[in-house]
């Protein structure tokens, strides 16, 4: 049984059909590369999974149970985390404060409940070590590299024991060396059994980490196959429409 199963998903914005009849499934411990041109429906699909809005039609099952999210919080509670392109990180806070933002650890007895900064720092340190990142929990994010910021965003999903992590262009704005770092982070999450969706325009990244590739064109799914059975040339053809379906 797939971890997440979406069947016959459609999404209309007025007369515009962003997604039509898409089937989509995610397995534990697998990275799925999601590709397509601008407006192909990638971000609509991701936003539906993340609970930003429900689909116009179609059903979603998580671990075999039907789900319907109306708010992103619902999806997060179900174990679906998003790492946003702009990272959604507060630059003025420390790495640990960001990892625990909205789920702070407290200590003391009511009414004197105070932030347990030491514990959050220690736990973040463990998370960064698991991710083999050199990010220091007590450093302010402002002074960090793009790769370290990614580690902060990813550690946050890790803290919540997410089942599914949706990554929207995680390698778009960082240097080549940092890209390798981020791809390694993704492999580590996969090895711990998470299902990962990688939305990216960068063909080399997708082919280097993905297990499965899904291509969307104009709201239709035109490919869904193991990455080993595809090639960058085929995917390029599918994205542009030179190849109709594969």
């Amino acid at each position: 049984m797939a971890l997440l199963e979406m069947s016959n998903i459609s999404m209309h914005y007025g007369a515009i059909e962003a997604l039509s009849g898409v089937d989509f499934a995610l397995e534990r411990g697998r990275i799925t590369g999601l590709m397509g041109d601008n407006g192909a429906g990638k971000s609509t699909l991701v936003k539906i999974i993340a609970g930003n809005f429900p689909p116009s039609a179609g059903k979603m099952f998580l671990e075999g149970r039907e789900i319907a999210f109306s708010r992103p919080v619902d999806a997060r509670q179900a174990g679906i985390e998003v790492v946003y392109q702009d990272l959604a990180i507060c630059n003025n806070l420390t790495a640990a404060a960001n990892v625990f933002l909205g789920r702070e650890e407290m200590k003391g007895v009511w009414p004197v409940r105070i932030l347990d900064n030491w514990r959050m720092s220690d736990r973040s340190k463990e998370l960064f070590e698991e991710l083999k990142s050199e990010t220091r929990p007590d450093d302010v994010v402002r002074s960090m590299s793009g790769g370290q910021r990614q580690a902060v965003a990813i550690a946050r999903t890790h803290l919540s024991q997410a089942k599914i992590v949706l990554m929207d262009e995680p390698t778009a704005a960082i240097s080549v060396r940092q890209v390798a770092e981020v791809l390694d982070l993704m492999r580590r999450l996969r090895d711990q059994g998470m299902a990962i969706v990688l939305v990216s325009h960068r063909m080399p990244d997708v082919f280097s980490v993905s297990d499965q590739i899904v291509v969307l064109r104009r709201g239709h799914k035109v490919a869904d196959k193991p990455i080993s059975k595809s090639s960058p040339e085929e995917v390029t053809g599918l994205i542009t429409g030179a190849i109709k379906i594969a």
Partner: protein
Amino acid sequence: MTAAPGYAYSGPRVGFIQKIVSKQPFWVLIAVVIIPMVMTLVEPTFHSAFFSGENFVNNTRNFAFIAIMALGQVAVMITGGIDLSVGSTLAISGIVLGLLMDAGHSFWLAAFAALLTGLAVGAVNGYLIAYWRLSPFVVTLGMLSIGRSLALAISNNKFFHKFGPDQGLLLQFGGGKTFGIANPVIVMVILALIMGFVFKYTRYGRHLYAIGGNEHAARLTGVPVDLLKVSVYVLSGLMTAIAAVLMVGWLGSVTNGIGIGYELRVIASTVIGGVNLLGGEGGAFAAVVGAALIEIIRNSLLLAGVDPYWQGTFVGVFIILAVLLERLRGRKVG
């Protein structure tokens, strides 16, 4: 805990000295200490005048009112907002207090009503800013005008100087001393300690910094951004109302002209203390030390016999220097 009071959490395991020295309030504190020393060197008679007990009480009390208002303003500014309406809020709260006590009501009832007035003004500001998504600058600028006009209308331009049966209590509360320290200063210290604690050690405080750092991120992680935004304007209104009660007690009278231009002194205090106008940075100590520096500058110039017309120039130079200092520190870090 070894950390500068009231600052955004930046790690418990960084060197104590290194951390203190990297904060703006530390340097402002140095200025507060050094200015009187320099003035003493320049003008020998300055020493006896400045360091007299009387002058100390006056100085500390004068900046206490502004510092209390600045404590609320800091909360607003940490979220990236601004509250320009504080001078007018001070006036409405003060007038409500005067009006009720003049009519023979007790100090406690009148003070309670004055605080409620401040809360209400803040709630209106916060509601418009958080839920109608209007710019804080414009909303509070409008409230600056509305508040002053309401103070005029409610008071009917009357000058209140008789405060009924509890007059003695009011004058003692605002104008009296406890253990040789002016009461407003004691209130300021208590409020500063509370706010410092709230900013640094509570989830509420952490979330205010998060909103100032990246409002979108805070929202995505489930921080109740809109509610917190309302709360900081309410806090600013409340602090201003507390300052109003103390100030009316100290002055022994109130007119609708009280606190004109105070918004600028309050904001100047926070900026000198190193609070970032863009949000995400600042603390309780910054508000107090910034207000103290302005008062020290004013008082020192006065005692040194400098024409008071020049006060504004000196204060203005320090505001600009403060921003410059922040820029220099920023460059070193980033």
